[in-house]
């Protein structure tokens, strides 16, 4: 019998500027996680995600992007986090990213995740798709969203970040 799913787990709307956002104690009872982000940043930078506080070089990604005149692809290997807005990122006008983390709680597999990112304005506007890999079999119970640069780079007040859980029957 079909069961209703796609449940909100946690959400935050920034009431002040913030450099990073963390979601902790994520339950392992779902099949996939979906993170929906609608955000602005104060100056051009790349946005990245990290799992379970793991800052070792266990991350990689492959990017496909278009900027309105050309299409590109790049990758990053042996990274300390995985980018979801690398060559495409918004500025004070919100862009958005939707990240799907499949089988996030399976303790037998590394974690593969897919992200779509869109930014219409800013120094690097465009649309992009990413596949990311976290080479760890641990269940994901913590997600940190951050950006490159020092404290002078941050997400602007009003940015929203929401995690949903999807459970297969």
């Amino acid at each position: 019998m079909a069961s209703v799913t796609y449940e909100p787990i946690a959400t935050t709307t920034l009431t002040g500027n913030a450099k990073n956002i963390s979601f902790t104690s994520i339950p392992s009872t779902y099949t996939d996680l979906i993170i929906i982000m609608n955000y602005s940043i104060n100056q051009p930078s790349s946005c990245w995600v990290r799992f379970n506080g793991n800052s070792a070089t266990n991350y990689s990604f492959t990017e496909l992007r278009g900027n309105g005149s050309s299409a590109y692809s790049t990758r990053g290997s042996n990274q300390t986090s995985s980018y979801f807005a690398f060559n495409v990122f918004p500025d004070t006008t919100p862009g958005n990213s939707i990240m799907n983390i499949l089988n996030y709680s399976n303790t037998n597999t590394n974690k593969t995740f897919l992200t779509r990112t869109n930014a219409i304005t800013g120094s690097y506007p465009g649309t992009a798709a990413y596949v990311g890999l976290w080479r760890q079999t641990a269940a994901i119970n913590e997600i940190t969203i951050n950006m490159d640069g020092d404290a002078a780079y941050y997400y602007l007040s009003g940015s929203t970040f929401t995690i949903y859980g999807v459970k297969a029957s």
Partner: protein
Amino acid sequence: MIGTLATGALSIPTPPITSSFYSIASVSVASGGISSITFNSIPTDYKHLQLRLFIKAAATTNGTPTIVYNGDTSSVYTYHELQGNGASASAYSPGANYGGQWYVLGGQSADQYAAYITDILDYASTSKNKTIRTLMGFDNNGSGRVYLASQTYQNASTAITSLTLTMQSGNASEFSHAALYGIKD
């Protein structure tokens, strides 16, 4: 004020959950692997379907899954993709109505699980061809590909009531997972 926002907080909604997203069926691949997965008797009372796949191919080449609707292997499928391989972006289509099957072309290696999210829009319509889109990819830390794909199943008169995923070569490995969801309007 710049700082670290420690935790996003939300009161977990109490049941019933008012969602239009339903889990219809799923398959988790056991030890030994599996060469195909079929979802039969798909109800027609949803508006759209979403298929979410987490697949590792046992074969090191030509291991990608293909999908056939309603057991229909005739030349009624089309496919276009935009691909990024980490160095360049490219586009591909096999051309005219593809030979009986819809290929999710991935060039997947046997190292990591690939992820696929496929939306089948208006799947139950008996007056429209079926338009399908997929976001998919795999990364092997130094290799890998990400795709945006669009497909059609050119059968306007029949609702999709079954879906068969078949590995092009070999089996889908243990811990692979396929889940079918229905979205109501």
